[in-house]
């Protein structure tokens, strides 16, 4: 999609008429959109001041479409974003273009993988991203529209259209968009980017994984019983991380579960190390489940009666705090052949 291909006639329609008009071009996610009029796109670009709107910030497979800031702004308008959300979208797109993400595979696989976008630091507060109660669900404009805008970019620029650009067998709800803030105020540990070597006031993490798996523990007052349940959610043969050992597990702890760990003196590293030790399955069970395995060599040498970790290194277990009151956490296994990326946001004009 380029701005030039959006006819002036198209830009004059809005609401449900726009849905029909865009559907004729094979564009959109099926939901109503905002018409990307030149005035709206220019207003959106004010969210990334002092930058070149026509600079290509990423080339996105499988279509290898060029994503300029202007093209991203067009999609941000269509999704319902405000200008202050544009820097997050641009940074998320930059992150997805990193080779270790393997975006061509992410978009083209039969798996239901979709990008999870986490917003960290000052921009989460200033642009209205929500990391508290219900953060992974509906009700917050910044979360909802940024996640949706990223999907529109994947559809329109990357060409990840179901069928000839996205082979996902069933698709998944996260493919409509999944974006939220890290709940830094309720976290007992330093902000997540610092754990992966990113020192910046604002940052974005992208992780290409499944929809979140719930972890429920209402009663425990020690880390062990809570994290054993997290390990249970991680240790299943029904996910790619069981047969691909480089895969990451994002563990989204709710504030109360995290606090229970921290009060007991556990650091973020303690939590990931414990989960590495406990999220395991017998080698014989995993070998029975998978004839094809992409495991680290040392894992393949474990005897059948030994326990195999669900990933090859504790660093692949990523811990952050999200959510509000209550005792539900989530595990988001990756697609397997992809790595998460955390980038500082340099688009804020400061």
């Amino acid at each position, binding site marked *: 999609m380029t701005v030039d291909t959006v006819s002036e006639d198209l830009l004059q329609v809005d609401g449900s008429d726009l849905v029909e008009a865009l559907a004729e071009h094979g564009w959109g996610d099926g939901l109503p959109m905002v018409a990307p009029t030149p005035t709206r796109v220019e207003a959106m670009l004010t969210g990334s001041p002092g930058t070149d709107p026509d600079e290509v910030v990423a080339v996105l*497979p*499988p*279509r*290898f479409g060029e994503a300029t800031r202007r093209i991203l702004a067009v999609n941000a308008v269509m999704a319902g974003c405000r200008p202050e959300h544009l820097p997050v979208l641009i940074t998320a797109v930059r992150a997805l273009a990193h080779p270790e993400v393997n975006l*061509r595979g992410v978009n*083209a696989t039969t798996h239901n993988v979709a990008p999870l976008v986490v917003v960290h630091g000052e921009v989460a507060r200033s642009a209205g991203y929500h990391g508290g109660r219900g953060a992974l669900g509906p009700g917050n404009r910044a979360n909802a529209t940024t996640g949706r805008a990223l999907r529109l970019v994947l559809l329109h620029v990357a*060409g990840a259209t179901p*069928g*000839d*650009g996205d*082979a996902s067998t069933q698709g998944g709800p996260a493919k409509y968009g999944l974006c939220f803030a890290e709940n830094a105020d309720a976290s007992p540990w330093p902000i997540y980017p610092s754990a992966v070597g990113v020192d910046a006031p604002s940052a974005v993490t992208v992780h290409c994984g499944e929809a979140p798996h719930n972890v429920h523990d209402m009663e425990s007052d020690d880390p062990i019983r809570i994290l054993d349940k997290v390990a249970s959610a991680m240790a299943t043969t029904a996910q790619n991380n069981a047969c691909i050992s480089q895969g990451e597990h994002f563990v989204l702890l709710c504030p109360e579960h995290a606090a229970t760990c921290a009060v007991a003196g556990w650091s973020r590293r303690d939590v990931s190390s414990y989960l590495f030790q406990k999220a395991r399955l017998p080698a014989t069970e995993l070998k029975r489940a998978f004839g094809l395995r992409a495991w680290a060599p040392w894992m393949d040498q474990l005897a059948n009666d030994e326990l195999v970790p669900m990933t090859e290194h504790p660093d692949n277990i990523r811990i952050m705090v999200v959510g509000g009151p209550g005792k539900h956490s989530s595990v988001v296994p990756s697609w397997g052949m992809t790595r998460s990326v955390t980038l500082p946001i340099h688009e804020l004009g400061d």
Partner: protein
Amino acid sequence: MTTNALSDLATKTATELGLPDLRMVSVAHPIGGVDPDEIRRRADNVVDEVLALLTGGRTLEGSAR
């Protein structure tokens, strides 16, 4: 090589990579979870097509499919 259920994706990807006439051979989908003997039968059935592509430079129809 591709399967018939994924040939649209393969063709589109090849085209976007600048290879609209990439020589491709399609076999019946799926290939996962299929008896090895059946896989061998499917492979045997496309050997002539593969040879034609490798020696003729085009698909049997003259373009990618």
